[in-house]
């Protein structure tokens, strides 16, 4: 940056200043690194390596942010380990982005370190506020338990405590033997040391060995003594329960594991639960449940994911048995339809276990979610192998109401175990999120787990529901709608599918945004319909009521921002642009993954439940505070003067900044590097040559003689360069001024030499046009006088690494004419799917993340435009002229596309 005191205060300061500037400019060009071919290749590869690494870190960071946000809203429990782990992983990835950007930019952007340090320091202070609960009580009574006690009692018992103490629903009396207790147990007498010894060297592929070691360890734990203190505490609490009982007290001991990713449904139901335990067996059963931590499937699961045994604790709930007359399972929604207007009840006589483990005959009901909760469907007698149950309509209604309430409280559809005792009282035994789609659960691609981890209940029951052929939602929805629930009969579904990027329902007129021109016209209250969720569209989210994108994932920038703004969004909704019509009114149900014609009041009335499961708990507060330093996006507009390092206030800003600048740095690689003249091979074409080619890596065929000073097109392997060239040469330049025939080369030659065409020609005489290429990469810079154009493309193996960019600056005509030309180019490029940014007489256009074939077609368009818009600013006097050029160019381009791609 020049400062005022750089200029000496002398009488002729003006002249001197001018000289100073010229010197400065000249020296700038002179000091540009002049690299030999090998050096240039190395530099390019190093940049390219950093670029790819940056993109990877960017994707990781965005996914982590999405995961943290979803934890707040998805109704699941999480501990400090989750918060700390994600903050750490996030800061590591952003550190890497900054590191790679700095290298990409040859040492610039180091000032990003300052906001990064400041933000991570604030984050560290936030997450340091709460240390993990190291020591606590050995036993907590159910009256003391709610979601915030998850670190002591495990998720299962924390949820049950929530049901009892915050919702006031009936659950069995009892207590939880905590994580602290199990830690005491296994650490006494070096039990853990012996367990570790036995696990050492265990071959998980050898199933026999696995089962043997697993059984041995379980046996070891089952026979180990409890400390007197713990045993006394358990028996004392048991005694307390017994004093309230008339008969002999029987309890159920339920495992509630802590320290594993319990949101992963594939692991649910893994550990042991024992029913009808009498006093004399309570302590023994406790030991056996703690031992079930070492069931073979659990060992495999933990080892594959790197969980330390020491960090996984088995908490055990000890609950009074319910003398069940009828018991079963209740889904607050159909497992395969998150918007079903009914609950599903599975019931069997006696205890819930017969339904849960699938051992007994069950009966199924569908009951409306709306009061008075009528039974919509009851399995007919002939479908049953036993006489129908005595579940009354009243009981069914009570169950349905309870299911709806639990879902509202936990913020997500629930899978509930229940029991009605002989006095007719309903008890909730367990409530947990209904099985999520496989894509959201933990994945384990190992061949081991696929045959050792048992099928989970949710999927089994879900399948049986479908197999029994329950009528589809539409057949019952009329009834449901009478009660004002869900969707009216026969709403016109326009689109269905995609992934929910931000929950909720929104209604408004469709407005498709394909280019920046559309962006400016976007009306408040419209539904934003796009092909790709570019971060640039984020500026529309305070005006949009919903977003529908044909592509994209919940981890995309735009999805993060949509969640932050509370704008419902569906991504990956195929055919959205083709199906929807501009200005037509639609209702977007992002939660249900559907777009309906018209306004569906009943859907809009379903305010998305704001789950408060963890709200108020210290961990929830910590995550909320941490996210304030992470997700808000302040840098939405790269053209804004505030789009700079010190404008980064959050980690999201840093990712946005780094990504944007990395792309720019890659686009301008050739710009910043000079090269040794010998590296450049002159392109042999039938014309006075202006074109030089530099191989960065593998852009020339192997049989090309590196000593040769010339190269022809046949020796060029670069697909992007060939495509540009094809576009440049497809049509002779027909526009004014009239030129003599002589092929395209002479046109270029003429245009550079005729001073009437370009007043800047004198300085352009020495300029050459260079292609920097590799097989999949091409950077073409074209300089002619005041004109400057740059095309760059990378067509790699991964879509995330693919792009085409185009920059265009300058012109010799007056500003109005130059603007008309820029406008014309912008419009044409927008029509071909480019994102165009325009500032005065400079423009940039980009396409990213598209397949190679698509990008090659766009390169032909750019090649054509490079040649055919060259001097049109000189003659482009008005809008009519511009319109006529527009027409001609589009006609040519359509011919070009037809010619080269028969399928187009």
């Amino acid at each position, binding site marked *: 940056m020049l400062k005022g005191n750089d200029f000496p205060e002398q009488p002729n300061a003006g002249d001197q200043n001018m000289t100073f500037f010229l010197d400065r400019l000249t020296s700038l060009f002179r000091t540009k690194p002049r690299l030999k071919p090998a050096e240039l290749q*190395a*530099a390019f*590869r*190093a940049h390219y*390596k950093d670029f790819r*690494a940056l993109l*990877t870190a960017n994707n990781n960071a965005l996914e982590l942010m999405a995961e943290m946000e979803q934890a707040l809203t998805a109704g699941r429990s999480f501990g400090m*380990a989750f918060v*700390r*782990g994600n*903050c*750490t*992983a996030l*800061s*590591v990835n952003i*550190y*890497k982005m900054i*590191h790679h950007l700095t*290298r990409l930019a*040859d040492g610039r952007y180091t000032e990003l370190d300052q906001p990064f340090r400041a933000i*991570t320091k604030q*984050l*560290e202070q936030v*997450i340091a506020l709460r240390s993990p609960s190291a020591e606590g009580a050995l036993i907590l009574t159910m009256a003391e338990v709610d979601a915030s006690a998850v670190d002591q009692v495990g998720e299962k018992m924390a949820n049950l405590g929530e049901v009892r103490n915050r919702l006031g629903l009936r659950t069995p009396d009892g207590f939880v033997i905590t994580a602290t207790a199990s830690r005491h147990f296994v650490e006494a007498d070096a039990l853990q040391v012996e367990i*570790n010894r036995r*696990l*050492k*060297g*265990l*071959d*998980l*592929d050898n199933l026999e060995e696995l089962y043997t070691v697993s059984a041995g360890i379980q046996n070891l734990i089952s026979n180990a003594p409890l400390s007197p203190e713990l045993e006394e505490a358990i028996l004392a609490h048991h005694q307390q329960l017994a004093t309230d009982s008339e008969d002999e007290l029987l309890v159920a001991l339920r495992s509630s594991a802590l320290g594993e*990713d319990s949101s992963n449904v594939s692991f649910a139901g893994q550990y042991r639960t024992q029913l009808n335990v009498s006093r004399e067996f309570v302590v023994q059963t406790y030991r056996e449940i703690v031992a079930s931590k070492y069931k073979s499937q659990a*060992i495999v699961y*933990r*080892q*594959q*994911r*790197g*969980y*330390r*045994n020491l*960090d996984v604790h088995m908490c055990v709930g000890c609950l009074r048995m319910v003398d069940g007359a009828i018991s079963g399972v209740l889904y607050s929604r159909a497992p395969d339809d998150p918007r079903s207007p009914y609950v599903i009840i599975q019931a069997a006589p006696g205890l819930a276990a017969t339904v849960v483990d699938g051992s007994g005959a069950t009966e199924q009901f569908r009951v409306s979610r709306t009061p008075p909760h009528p039974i919509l469907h009851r399995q007919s007698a002939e479908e049953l192998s036993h006489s129908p149950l005595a579940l009354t309509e009243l009981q069914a209604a009570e169950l349905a109401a309870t299911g709806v309430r639990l879902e509202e409280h936990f913020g997500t559809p629930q899978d509930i175990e229940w029991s009605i005792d002989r006095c007719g009282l309903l008890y909730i035994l367990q409530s947990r999120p209904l099985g999520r789609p496989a894509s959201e659960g*933990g*994945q*384990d*691609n*190992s061949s081991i787990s696929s045959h050792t981890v048992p099928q989970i209940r949710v999927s089994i029951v879900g399948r049986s529901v479908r197999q029994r052929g329950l009528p589809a939602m539409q057949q019952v929805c009329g009834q449901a709608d009478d009660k004002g629930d869900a969707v009216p009969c026969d709403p016109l579904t326009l689109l269905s599918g995609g992934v929910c990027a931000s929950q909720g329902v929104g209604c408004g007129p469709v407005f498709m945004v394909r280019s920046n021109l559309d962006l400016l016209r976007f009306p408040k209250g419209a539904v934003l319909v796009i092909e790709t969720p570019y971060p640039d569209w984020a500026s529309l989210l305070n005006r949009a009521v919903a977003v529908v994108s044909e592509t994209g994932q919940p981890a995309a920038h735009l999805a993060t921002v949509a969640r932050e703004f509370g704008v419902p969004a569906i991504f990956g909704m195929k055919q959205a642009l083709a199906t929807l019509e501009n200005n037509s009114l639609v209702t977007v149900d992002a939660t249900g993954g559907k777009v309906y014609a018209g306004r569906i009041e009943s859907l809009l009335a379903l305010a998305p439940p704001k789950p408060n499961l963890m709200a108020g708990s210290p961990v929830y507060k910590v995550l909320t505070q941490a996210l304030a330093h992470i997700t808000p996006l302040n840098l939405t507009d790269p053209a804004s003067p505030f789009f700079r390092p010190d404008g980064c206030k959050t980690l999201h800003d840093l990712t946005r900044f780094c990504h944007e600048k990395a792309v720019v740095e890659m686009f301008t690689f050739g710009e910043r590097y000079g090269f040794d003249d010998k590296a450049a091979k002159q392109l042999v074409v039938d014309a006075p040559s202006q074109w030089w080619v530099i191989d960065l890596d593998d852009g020339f065929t192997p049989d090309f003689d590196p000593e040769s000073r010339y190269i022809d097109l046949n020796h060029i392997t670069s697909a992007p360069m060939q495509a540009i060239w094809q576009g440049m040469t497809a049509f002779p330049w027909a526009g004014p001024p009239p030129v003599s025939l002589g092929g395209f080369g002479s046109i270029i030659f003429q245009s550079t030499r005729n001073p009437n065409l370009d007043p800047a020609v004198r300085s352009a005489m020495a300029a050459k046009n260079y292609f920097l290429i590799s097989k999949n990469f091409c950077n073409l810079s074209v300089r002619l006088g005041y004109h400057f154009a740059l095309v760059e493309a990378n067509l790699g193996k991964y879509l995330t690494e693919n792009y085409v960019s185009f920059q265009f600056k300058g012109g010799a005509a007056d500003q109005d004419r130059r603007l008309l030309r820029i406008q014309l180019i912008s419009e044409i490029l927008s029509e071909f799917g480019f994102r165009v940014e325009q500032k005065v007489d400079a423009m940039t256009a980009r396409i990213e993340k598209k397949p190679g074939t698509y990008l090659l077609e766009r390169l032909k368009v750019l090649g054509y435009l490079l040649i055919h818009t060259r001097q049109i600013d000189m003659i482009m006097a008005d809008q009519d002229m511009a319109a006529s050029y527009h027409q001609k160019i589009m006609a040519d381009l359509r011919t070009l596309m037809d010619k080269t791609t028969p399928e187009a």
Partner: protein
Amino acid sequence: MDQPLKILLIDDEIDFVETTAKRLIRRGYSAKTALTCAEGLETIASGWPEVVVLDVMLPDRDGMDCLREIKEKWPTLPVILLTGHASMEAGLHGLESGASDYCLKPIDLETLVEMIAIAHRESRLPGI
């Protein structure tokens, strides 16, 4: 790959490290394990590994210390840090000390394999 990529896992969690090594081998990698920093350094000194996965909690020595020694003696050898206990400070400190990446337990193998592949790819390409 022509020659299987050689990966050294240094971690005292014997069950985890052995399982991971086996699964890497099943995917066509070559893998060895070391339970202590000293053992790990010995294997590295033999010139065998191409990528090192290092737990920051080791019985005989602080993992960060171990990392610094590795990067001092073998600056081009990529090291991925692994830990069961997340700390932002430790994570950033590790990268500043020359680690290629930082990975939190629990991990899945896909993630680890990708990290290893990228760390190795980057170590072979010229830097500036």
